[in-house]
């Protein structure tokens, strides 16, 4: 058996292992991979996500168990100090020797730390590893302690990583100041104007930008207090993050006399071989074509080449031209650059579109004859990147009037692109996993895949950065269509019906429960899609609570609480309209204190209590119910809250009593199960303090009654509710709401909120008005009766649960023991507690 040793367990080193073991003839080889960091390889590209969740595990490329299963020996926390090429051995820092047949250097890079006076001071950090981040976090917390004003920090370097670091600094609660030597941000990828657009956008969210600044010295005694650029030019900062580029970790290559580049990097040929044919170098340590490539995709390509060369597939070589196109979301701003982003006039012409009111910039560079796309830049909106990138890579024909590529075609019809199906089969759609258009389409036409999920499982497309997803979706849909396969919206493999059909079938046939539904209309055992969907249908028809058919409820509904990180639950009692007495507030405080719960006021004007263990839920609810509370249904696809402003009761502008009406409406529809969650709002005047137009239904008081708005929402795709009817009295509002909500519940698809439901409704808002106001279908009375039936049957499901010993059995962690889950660990946070992050 031959031995392959990989030095460096980063993204590229890991990818080498993954690609190696996937090859048929890899069985005769044994891989050992060394990592200097304590943990297995993780996704450095998404390092700043560490701040959102502090979850190092989530960034892992693969868990330790993966290496074991694949027979790859992973040795972390071990630095290699020497390579003895003559005897084909390496030596570790612990002075252990390992023999190799092939050696792969994937040592990556280190941050470049410029030689500035005072750079060694406390409070100066580099941005590269999770450990760096943890050190920064601890320091940031220390310097903010006890201060009321925001503490300033600087990031040296305004490139990709620098801006990521600025985001990280901002997430730590510090004021970020980006210091760049060049006169523009992202100097390598963006031209001056696009850079300016980006700059204005990020300044608007609180990141200060200082351009054309050469740092002379770091100020302060032992600890940084500021940075000096010129004699009278300095800024005060208490922390500095250096992100001024990378330098290859090439010291091992140097010490064993491999050929090196004049400015560092280990020289490799197009087989990824160094000057010693049995030693390979890949990733950021490799100098190929006299360049170091600091992007992940070329690193993965190098890994692929090295794998094939070692396994004897000699014709897999690194291409001479390496695509340096990038697309990313920087601090919420889309930025992309592909091909030749800058265009000297002798090579071609540029077409530029800029709209600063929308922070948009688009540039394409075309050949002099206007027939070929040579490159471009997108800032603000990069949704066209995939298509433009493909056109550039494959030299696809472009519209006669090239500007259509960025401003769309004039008049009717589609934009300047052809169909995605025009791309050649060999075009690489997913560059992280090297998946071509041909791979994707043939997985459907020949490989037996029937949907997006199958295609992703088979090809691994989209599983890297995910940027290619929109294009993969289009390709999958077009390929399915080309086979004449109808893309029918059945709910899952167990039922050949859509939600509305099942709703009618269950209602007309008076089906009694889920198991009978499966017997009559489905097959198999069901799944996590059809079970909660059918549970919701039963609730919408009979108002049954989740206590009746426990096993088909989503976990939240099963335990009548929201399952949170680490498997604890949160508790939200209903506080209709946001109105609460001091006595009830005291009860919530007492309960939270007794059970040591983290408390937070929600966006729906109520109070959420986090960190309850399963067995505590009934005890907590017993106390709340005794004090007059009831379930807030925060865990269900059901009515959540009706938010209100104080209205005419207190407010000097108020037109009507918005709180009273909000309470009435919330109590009317409480417990109502629907295809998705429902939210309402009532504002006492047009100042709209209750944000009623951001809700599924909203009321705004005007002279002479209420204006009713429907089908709005906040969330990922915010949408204002649309004006539905004006100057209504209370009774008419309720009548219309009954009809509207019942019609939505009957006809919407699973997990479709009112706004997208309206979007898809044939005839749109006018049709909805005809059905609800003019009763064009003749079902208005039926809808009202159904709703009244549901309202009459309302029962608090928590009260139901704690009064029944049988129902209580489920609130126990173990069937065979009264022990509780001993894996729950909490850590303190701002005088309360939070779940401890796994690492």
């Amino acid at each position: 058996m031959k031995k392959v040793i990989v030095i460096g367990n980063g993204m590229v080193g890991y990818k080498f292992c993954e690609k190696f073991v996937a090859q048929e003839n890899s069985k005769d080889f044994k891989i050992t991979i060394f990592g200097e960091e304590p943990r297995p390889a993780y996704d450095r590209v998404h390092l700043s996500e560490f701040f959102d969740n502090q979850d190092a595990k989530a960034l892992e490329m693969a868990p330790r168990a993966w290496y074991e299963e694949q027979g790859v020996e992973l040795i972390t926390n071990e630095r290699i100090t020497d390579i003895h090429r003559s005897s084909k051995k390496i030596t570790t820092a612990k002075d252990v020797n390992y023999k190799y047949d092939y050696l792969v250097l994937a040592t990556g890079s280190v941050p470049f730390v410029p030689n500035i006076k005072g750079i060694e001071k406390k409070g100066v950090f580099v941005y590269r590893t999770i450990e760096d981040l943890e050190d920064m976090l601890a320091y940031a917390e220390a310097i903010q302690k006890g201060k009321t004003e925001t503490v300033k920090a600087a990031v040296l370097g305004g490139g990709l990583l620098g801006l990521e670091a600025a985001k990280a600094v901002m997430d730590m609660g510090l004021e970020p100041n980006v210091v760049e030597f060049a006169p523009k941000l992202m100097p390598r990828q963006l031209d001056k104007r696009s850079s300016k657009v980006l700059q204005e956008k990020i300044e608007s969210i609180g990141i200060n930008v200082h351009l054309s600044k050469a740092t002379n010295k770091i100020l302060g005694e032992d600890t940084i207090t500021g940075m000096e650029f010129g004699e009278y030019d300095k800024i005060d900062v208490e922390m500095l993050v250096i992100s001024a580029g990378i330098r290859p970790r090439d010291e091992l290559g140097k010490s064993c006399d491999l050929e090196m580049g004049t400015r560092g990097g280990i020289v490799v040929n197009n087989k990824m071989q160094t000057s010693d044919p049995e030693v390979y170098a890949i990733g950021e340590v490799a100098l190929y074509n006299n360049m170091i490539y600091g992007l992940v995709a070329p690193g993965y390509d190098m890994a692929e080449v090295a794998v094939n060369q070692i396994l004897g597939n000699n014709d897999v070589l690194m291409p001479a031209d390496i695509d340096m196109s990038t697309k990313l979301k920087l601090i919420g701003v889309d930025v992309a650059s592909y091909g030749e982003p800058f265009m000297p006039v002798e090579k071609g012409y540029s077409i530029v579109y800029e709209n600063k009111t929308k922070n948009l910039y688009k540039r394409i560079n075309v050949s002099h004859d206007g027939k070929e796309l040579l490159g471009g830049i997108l800032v603000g909106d990069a949704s066209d990147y995939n298509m433009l990138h493909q056109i550039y890579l494959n030299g696809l024909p472009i519209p006669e009037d090239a500007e259509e590529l960025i401003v769309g075609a004039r008049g009717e019809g589609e934009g300047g692109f052809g169909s995605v199906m025009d791309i050649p089969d060999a075009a690489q759609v997913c560059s992280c996993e090297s998946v071509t258009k041909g791979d994707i389409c043939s997985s459907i036409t020949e490989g037996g895949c029937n949907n997006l999920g199958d295609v992703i499982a088979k090809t691994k497309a989209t599983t890297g950065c995910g940027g290619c997803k929109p294009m993969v979706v289009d390709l999958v849909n077009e390929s399915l269509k080309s086979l004449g396969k109808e893309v029918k919206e059945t709910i899952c493999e167990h039922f050949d019906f859509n939600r509305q059909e099942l709703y009618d079938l269950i209602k007309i046939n008076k089906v009694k429960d889920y198991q009978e539904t499966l017997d009559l209309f489905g097959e198999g055992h069901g799944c996590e899609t059809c079970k909660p969907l059918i549970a919701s249908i039963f609730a919408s028809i009979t108002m049954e609570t989740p206590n009746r058919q426990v096993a088909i409820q989503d976990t939240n509904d099963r335990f009548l609480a929201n399952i949170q990180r680490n498997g604890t639950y949160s508790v939200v009692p209903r506080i209709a309209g946001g109105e609460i007495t001091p006595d009830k507030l005291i009860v919530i405080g007492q309960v939270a204190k007794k059970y040591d719960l983290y408390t937070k006021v929600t966006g729906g004007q109520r109070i959420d209590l986090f960190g309850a263990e399963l067995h505590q839920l009934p005890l907590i609810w017993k106390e709340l119910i005794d004090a007059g509370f009831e379930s807030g249904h925060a865990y269900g696809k059901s009515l959540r809250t009706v938010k209100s402003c104080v209205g005419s009761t207190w407010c000097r502008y108020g037109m009507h009593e918005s709180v009273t009406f909000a309470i009435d409406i919330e109590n009317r529809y409480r417990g109502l199960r629907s295809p998705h969650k429902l939210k309402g709002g009532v504002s006492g005047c047009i100042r709209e303090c209750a944000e009623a137009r951001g809700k599924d239904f909203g009321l705004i008081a005007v002279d002479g009654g209420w204006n009713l708005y429907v089908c709005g929402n906040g969330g990922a795709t915010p949408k204002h509710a649309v004006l539905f009817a004006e100057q209504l009295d209370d009774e008419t509002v309720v009548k219309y709401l009954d009809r509207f909500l019942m019609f939505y519940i009957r006809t919407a698809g699973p997990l479709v909120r009112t706004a997208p439901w309206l979007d898809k409704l044939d005839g749109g808002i006018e049709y909805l008005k005809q059905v609800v106001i003019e009763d064009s279908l003749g079902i208005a009375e039926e809808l009202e009766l159904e709703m009244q039936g549901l309202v009459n049957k309302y029962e608090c499901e928590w009260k139901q649960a704690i009064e029944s010993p049988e129902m209580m059995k489920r609130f126990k962690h173990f069937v065979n023991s009264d022990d509780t889950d001993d894996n729950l660990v909490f850590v303190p946070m701002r005088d309360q507690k939070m779940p401890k992050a796994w690492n």
Partner: protein
Amino acid sequence: MQDILSQYETVTEAHVKEWFNVGEVSDFPENSGACIKYKTKQIAVYNFSRTSKWYATQNLCPHKMEMVLSLGMIGDKDDIPKVACPMHKKNFSLEDGSNLAGEDLKIATYPVKIEDGNVYIGFAD
């Protein structure tokens, strides 16, 4: 952290050293999962009452290391019995513990037998 995960290893019927009684059939909800404790282990037990089949796996979801699989919804995909983790809906085969989306996540499985109305799970330790 690694310790918590490493104590779960698939046990096949041939390697069972102890059949551990975890309760009566009626203690386990129908067509659903439930959790039992064996020494320091948490084991999820799944009762497919439509076909009277039983399965057992580790309760720990290897994705985010949370003790939650017994709370997940059970069902089948392409006739393979499965559980969907309640946190992020990762699907695992109850037959061999593999991730049904082909991801590098795997859970340990344990044999279950029913005798005289009692439920037994097979362990090798």
